[in-house]
């Protein structure tokens, strides 16, 4: 019941709706830009961009690729960083705890809310991409990375798997945000720290000197969803990513629990 209230509060909030709206704009902007400049087939640009003109179903995919490094971590950072710090800054944290919500339960509900936002954000990009792609471009069979061709129905299943992969990828970041959020009562600080960490992780992932630690960075497998576009699907990165994110959720979730259960709520 607290979860229902949390979701209601989160998704009725203007800020949340605005962020989801901005994410919905990503595929629309991509599709319109490609449509307007469609005259010259440059063959350059991000992967798949040139395939959009041939197949509208690629709009959703391209939008996800574009959103993963920045837009999704940014919005997730805002929501995850706000979880506890936001309540603390409103002063509502003390009233929730006095209700009493139970500290562990509140933390769990807050994390579930952040995870629900990850799902909503990813779904918004995919659904908006599919709709605008179908409106502006032809919809036909999809060529996979392996060169094999599948029908739109099979592609829809892969899109769902893809969205699941992206949501999974964001769970570790959400746990980090939750932990940082228990450290402060300044939500903007927690949000910024979470977003900066996601950027730092991606930068470290690109420095060859740090190859030894790269497999343990939470963003290491963010772009590994290409494996879902092979024939047959390669589940390796899905499984590895699940394990990696589970590790982050456990470590930072544990740290958040430890911190929040012992914290004096003075705001």
């Amino acid at each position: 019941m607290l979860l229902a209230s949390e979701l209601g509060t989160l998704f009725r909030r203007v800020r949340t709706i605005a962020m989801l709206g901005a994410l919905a704009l990503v595929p629309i902007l991509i599709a319109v830009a490609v449509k307007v400049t469609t005259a010259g087939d440059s063959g350059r640009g991000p992967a798949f961009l040139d395939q959009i003109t041939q197949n509208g179903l690629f709009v959703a995919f391209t939008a996800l690729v574009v959103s993963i490094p920045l837009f999704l971590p940014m919005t997730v950072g805002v929501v995850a960083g706000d979880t506890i710090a936001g309540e603390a800054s409103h002063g509502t944290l003390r009233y929730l705890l006095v209700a009493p919500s139970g500290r562990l339960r509140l933390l769990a509900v807050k994390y579930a809310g952040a995870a629900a936002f990850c799902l909503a954000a990813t779904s918004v990009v995919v659904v908006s991409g599919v709709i605008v792609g179908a409106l502006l471009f032809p919809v036909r069979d999809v060529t996979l990375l392996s060169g094999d061709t599948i029908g739109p129905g099979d592609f829809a299943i892969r899109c769902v798997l893809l969205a699941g992969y992206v949501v999974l990828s964001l769970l570790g970041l959400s746990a980090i945000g939750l932990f940082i959020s228990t450290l402060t009562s300044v939500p903007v600080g927690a949000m910024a720290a979470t977003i900066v960490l996601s950027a730092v992780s991606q930068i470290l992932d690109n420095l060859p000197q740090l190859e030894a630690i790269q497999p343990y960075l939470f963003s290491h497998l963010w772009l590994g969803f290409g494996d879902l576009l092979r024939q047959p699907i390669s589940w390796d990165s899905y499984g590895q990513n699940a394990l990696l994110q589970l590790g982050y959720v456990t470590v930072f979730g544990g740290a958040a629990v430890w911190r929040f259960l012992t914290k004096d709520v003075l705001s």
Partner: protein
Amino acid sequence: MPQLAIETHGLTKRFGAQLAVDGLDLAVPAGTVFGFLGPNGSGKTTTIRMLLGLASSTDGEIRMLEEAMPSAIESVLPRVGALVEGPAFYPFLSGRANLLRLDAADRRSPLGTRRARVDAALERVGLTAAARKRAHAYSLGMKQRLGLANALLAPRDLLILDEPTNGLDPQGTREVRAIIRSVADEGATVFVSSHLLSEIEQLCSHVAVMSRGRLVAQGTLQELRAQSIRRLVVLSPDPDAARRVLAGLGLAPSVRVCPDGGAELTAELPDPTMLAENATRALVEAGVRVRGIAVAGETLEERFVALTGEGFDVAG
């Protein structure tokens, strides 16, 4: 021994090197309206946070509603309504939505009666008309009343109210007092903190006084009044003679010369059995002319200033 709604033993809170609350032994009898008085920064809010399990104590024990805190927090807090350090709400939600959310936070509160209880609480604090307005549009007084409504969402055995009339106009203050009295009439214990003596005097039957983290007095208001020092005030045109007589009685009067040539002599009466009439007879027998004689009781305010070493905002 009456039942105690709140009981602490040696309750202590230390922030680094600073002792915010030092060895507090509170005893709040059940069914009373209990005033928790102290200047700002004397440790009242920190004590309330510890009572409600928001902050951990460095040392000491807390029992609330006959159960140990914070280990029994899940069974105690549903019976406690609280207003802690001012009201706080989600500014983007309506007053009503705020209450619905805070009620949902309590796992034990029944969903079936939630809307009815929220509406009743809003009605009780007079916010029914503004229930659908967003909380950020509320005046401070409205927020204060909404906070009170939150504390009254369910039938409570104990209300802990931190500065409940802060920021209210005189009309709002009267209304809040009426609400607190009505809750007390229903049998609940009300624990009200305030830095305003007048607030406590008008509402409470019992009082505890905090100063710099320590409890300096505790008891009924009458007990505290009885402890206060009485003074003998003599108006006489013969101040020197009067002073000699009073000194002969063992008093140490201070003399203030009035512009008309007379003087006002003031002396503390150390012993309650020492009656003012003895002084009157002695003055008359010594031929001292007396314009007026009176026994002045110390005001509660003066008493608390003496206890805490600080002044109170009497006017608020």
